[in-house]
Structure formats: structure tokens, C-alpha cells
């Protein structure tokens, strides 16, 4: 699982990556820069992912594949892992990160842990 996170944290501008249990928002694995509070990120990301999933399903858009929260000073990116494990792969990034590259690595990591 740690190797899966390596894929993501190698990308320039990524401040941390985590595997999070989508059901309870607990950290499964993490690689975070100093100052990032893993448990808080995990809880918030899983909560937001859950709400977004319900909104998308209500809209007939199916399960979420990737989502990206853009903020003034950074971004939060999430990909749910396939399978029954209920794991989401989360990255916290700088505002000028290459989103396309992080997305690809998140998808690869999700495939690896799914």
C-alpha cells in the first residue's frame, strides 16, 4: 500500500497522499508532509466524498471516478478504489500542481489497492 502512495507523492506539488476508509473516515495508510493533519484530512475527505457520491447518484451520473476540490491555496483530489474495500485514495496538493498527472497516479494507486 505504501508503494501505491509513492506513485502519488513523487509528483511535484503533492504535499501528501493517503488511503482512507470511506465508511468511517479513518486513515489506512499515509505519506504526508509535516503540518498536514492526517486524521482530519481523512475524515473530511471521506465525508465530502460520501456527500458527492449521493449527489451524483441522485443525478444519474453513476459512481464517482475522480473528484477535485479547488481552493485558493491548494487542492484536494480523490479517487475511490475499485472493489468492495471501501477505500478512497486522497492527495493534498499545491495550487499549481499538475492535476492531470496527479489524477493518473491516483487512478493507478487506486487500481493497485482495489
Amino acid at each position, binding site marked *: 500500500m505504501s508503494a501505491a502512495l509513492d506513485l502519488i507523492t513523487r509528483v511535484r506539488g503533492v504535499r501528501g497522499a493517503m488511503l482512507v476508509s470511506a465508511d468511517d473516515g479513518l486513515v489506512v495508510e499515509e505519506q504526508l508532509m509535516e503540518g498536514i493533519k492526517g486524521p482530519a484530512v481523512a475524515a473530511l475527505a471521506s465525508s*465530502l466524498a460520501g456527500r458527492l457520491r449521493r449527489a451524483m447518484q441522485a443525478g*444519474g*451520473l453513476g459512481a464517482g471516478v475522480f*473528484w477535485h476540490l479547488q481552493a485558493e491555496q491548494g487542492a*484536494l483530489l480523490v479517487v475511490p478504489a475499485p472493489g468492495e474495500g471501501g477505500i478512497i485514495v486522497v492527495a493534498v496538493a499545491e495550487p499549481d500542481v499538475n492535476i492531470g498527472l496527479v489524477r493518473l497516479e491516483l487512478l493507478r494507486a487506486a487500481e493497485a489497492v482495489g
Partner: protein
Amino acid sequence: MDDIRALSAQLAQDPGSLIFLRLGEALRRKSQLDAALRVAINGLERHPHLADAHDLYARVLTDKHDYERAFDEWDMAVRIAPNHTGALKGLAFLYFKVGDLAQAEAHLEAARRVEPDDPSLEQAFAMIRGGGEAAPAPSPPPAATAPHPLDETRVFAGLEGANEGLLLIDGAGRVLGGALRDASGANVTDAVAAYLAGVSQEAARTAKLLGLGAWNGLSAEGQHGNVHLGQPAPDALLLVVRDRGMPLGRLAILAQRATILARRWLERQGGGGA
């Protein structure tokens, strides 16, 4: 029709030639828009960096009332060839249609600097300054799209109840405008609106607690469609939904434009949201 046959024959003989530009335009003028669209797309595939190809495609899209894509294509044409007067006039026309007269005039001015003797530009200026009752659209005029005087109800047509994948809600999840339907045609507006209010609150909380500052957009890819959520006002949310054929980056650009229009729309309603 003979012209079209002759041009089609020439293009068949030399598919890589630029004859497609004349053929596409001839088809467009005959209002054979689907055929014109195919010609334009095929031409663009062979000549993706040709501004005239993007211009042709944009004109056909405009005739088909697909203004968002037309804007993108004319925008691309101007990026490739900043002095492309056809694209500048096309953009001016689209800005005029959404009521942004300053941008419309700025693009016409740019076109006039390139072609100071183009009489259609004076007509277009007259239309913008005079309300557009009689003057034609900036040339080349779309075949089926005469310009309308600025009509407030059309400025944000997608939020006037039309099913165009736009939904504007207030902070409590109440619908302000727009509508959403799922693939089966069922109206899912209220359900999505109710969930979205929670998403917005959670997004704001997440960004704040992570020290990321204020959130300014949330993009998501679903199995059957992509969405972008933005905030045109502190207490309002705008959801833009498109099928998966539209990449997230392009969707974000579209959503930014829609957010600006939504902000103006809200201001005209007399408030900044709920």
C-alpha cells in the same frame, strides 16, 4: 448544388486539401448543417492547427445554436491566428448574444484594426450601439441565426427552466433556476439540489480546516457524466453537468463562464443568492 457536387468531387480526389473549407461553407449556406458539420470535423481532424478550419466549425455550430462550442472554436482560432477577423467577428457576435456589449465591441475593434475597410464591421457596430433592430450580425452571418436585440430572458437561458445541464441553487438547497434530468428523462432537480447544499458546506469546511483557503470549484468525473460545482455568490451554487465526452478541464472553463452569467443573473434578481 452543382458547386457542392464539384467541391465534393474535388475533396474526394484530394482529401488532404483545403477544399473542405469551401465545401463546408457552401453546405452551411445551403442550410445543410449536418453535412457541413461532418465536413468541418473531418477537415479539423486533418488540419487541427488551421484557424480557418476552427472558424468554419464555429460557424456551423452557431447555425446549430451550439454557442458554447462555437465560442471555444472561435477562441481557438484566435489563439492560432490572433488577427483572424472571421473569428473576432464571431466572438463579438456571441458576446453580443449574451449581453456583454463591451467585449463584443472590443472584438469588433480588433477586427477593424485588421480590416479597416470591412463594411460589415460598421453594420455590426451600429447593431451593438443601437440595440440591433435592423443591422445584420457580424459577417460572416450564420445562415439561420439572425441576431436578436438583447433579451434579458435569453442571457441565461439555461437557467430559465431549460434542461441544459445547469442548476442554480441557494445555500439551503432550494432551486433558483435550471433543471436536471437523468438519462431516462426523469427530473432529478430537487434530489440533486438537496444533496448539493451538503456538498457545498462540506467543501467549505474541508478547504478551511486544511488551510487551503476558500474553495472556488469542485469538479467530479462520474461513470455517466462529469460535473462542476461553482459559487457565483456566497449563498448560491451553480452545478454544470455534461456527458463524459466533455473533459473536466473544458468543463471547468465552461463552468467559469456559466458562473459569471449566473452572477449577473442573480444581481438582476436583486440579490446575491438566497
